[in-house]
């Protein structure tokens, strides 16, 4: 492949590279958030025992940023780019451009590492060039980051940070509504992933409300659609009812949005309208009461890390019931031919 074509491929797959970074970053947030939340119990104590929890919490919540940069770079240029990405990520933090600096720095240093390995070198020197090359890519991107793209990104991070911190009840509620609309619209597709990535990225700014909002509505689509089949069984096919009965416990335990897909897929428009509504309701309630979550976990572990568990259960129920009523209302206006669908299902 030519250099131009390979470069084009790299930039075309930017979403994949970004998500790879996020994928490797999540466990840090989880370990850090988990230990940090436990440390709250020992707040008053000064003993070494509780200090261990506290320090692990701080490490996880600080170093998820460079790990993300490292694995964005890894996704672009494979193993040689991990170390440059890690260094650039820490540099971004120390020069205040934080998450955004690390993201763009990681992309740049990944691409730069890819480029320096493309330089034609005499056969004899190739193995030593392999060791030296990442030094140059790291240096080049470090200068770009510090003198060129760093300062505007630092300003942007600061602005977003102080904006998120200054949001009052109604501000948080509208943020929750927007996030809910994104989260309920495509059942774990690009929109909801964008929204949940924003929620985890906001942890770099020491704001935990976005994560709390996300966690509150993540199970609204599956639970809402499941509840709807219990309210009005006659609107659903046998297969759908069976799936609903077998999956509601699993939804509570595992707690992710994608469980809704089999229920939504056969009637995507009406289901999506209902789940968006439900998620908006849950999101705005959770935002209004500043629901916070300190670690990005799903399912049962979530229940123990909310700052206001009552708000969680309240907003969740409101959203689930809204979704169930809305989808059944929509189905009652324009009915599907259940018998026909059931016959088709039998034939398959």
């Amino acid at each position, binding site marked *: 492949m030519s250099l131009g074509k390979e470069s084009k491929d790299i930039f075309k797959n930017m979403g*994949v590279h970004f998500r790879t970074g*996020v*994928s490797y970053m*999540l*466990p840090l947030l989880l370990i850090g958030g988990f230990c940090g939340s436990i440390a709250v119990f020992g707040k008053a104590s000064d003993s070494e025992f509780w200090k261990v929890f506290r320090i692990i919490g701080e490490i996880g919540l600080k170093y998820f940023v460079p790990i993300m940069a490292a694995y964005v770079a890894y996704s672009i240029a494979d193993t040689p780019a991990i170390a440059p990405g890690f260094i650039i990520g820490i540099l971004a933090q120390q020069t205040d451009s934080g998450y955004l600096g690390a993201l763009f720095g990681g992309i740049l240093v990944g691409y730069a590492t890819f480029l320096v390995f493309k330089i034609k070198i005499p056969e004899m020197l190739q193995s030593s060039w392999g060791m030296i090359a990442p030094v140059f890519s790291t240096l080049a991107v470090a200068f770009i980051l510090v003198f060129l793209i760093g300062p505007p990104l630092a300003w942007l991070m600061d602005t977003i940070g102080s904006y998120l911190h200054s949001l009052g009840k109604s501000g948080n509620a509208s943020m929750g509504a927007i996030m809910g609309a994104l989260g309920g619209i495509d059942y774990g597709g690009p929109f909801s992933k964008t929204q949940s990535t924003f929620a985890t990225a906001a942890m770099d700014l020491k704001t935990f409300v976005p994560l709390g909002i996300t966690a509150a509505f993540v199970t609204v689509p599956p639970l809402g659609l499941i509840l709807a089949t219990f309210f009005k069984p006659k609107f659903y096919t046998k297969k759908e009812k069976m799936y609903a009965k077998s999956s509601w416990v699993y939804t509570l335990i595992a707690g992710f949005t994608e469980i809704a897909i089999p229920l939504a897929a056969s009637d995507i428009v009406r289901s999506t309208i209902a789940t968006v509504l439900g998620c908006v309701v849950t999101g705005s309630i959770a935002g209004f009461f500043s629901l916070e979550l300190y670690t990005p976990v799903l399912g049962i572990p979530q229940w123990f890390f909310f700052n206001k568990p009552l708000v969680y259960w309240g907003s969740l129920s409101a959203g689930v019931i809204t979704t169930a009523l809305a989808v059944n209302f929509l189905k009652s206006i324009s009915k599907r031919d259940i018998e026909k669908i059931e016959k088709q299902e039998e034939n398959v």
Partner: protein
Amino acid sequence: MKIVLITACLAGVAQSKMAAVAIKKEVEARGFEISIEEQGGHKVTVRLSQEQIDTADVVIVAKAITISGRDRFRNKKVFETEVNKALRDPKGTVDKALEVINQK
């Protein structure tokens, strides 16, 4: 017919699992053999053996992130898709993978 499937998603909790189940059902309904490897952030990957990969007719890669261990199937016929597409349309995914086998 032997098919190898690699699924990979952000956390390795939801989509990779569900896509694997959907494709497995579709492939087995057609009477083919399938071996599956799931990857993701919160998951210990159970690696496919090199033998499983070598004897497969086609490798399906359904991913949202860069998969690890790509060099294991350097000489294989590979059909790449997004994990979301595989999850929503297992039939089309398998159809397209079979087309890849017939391409020279």
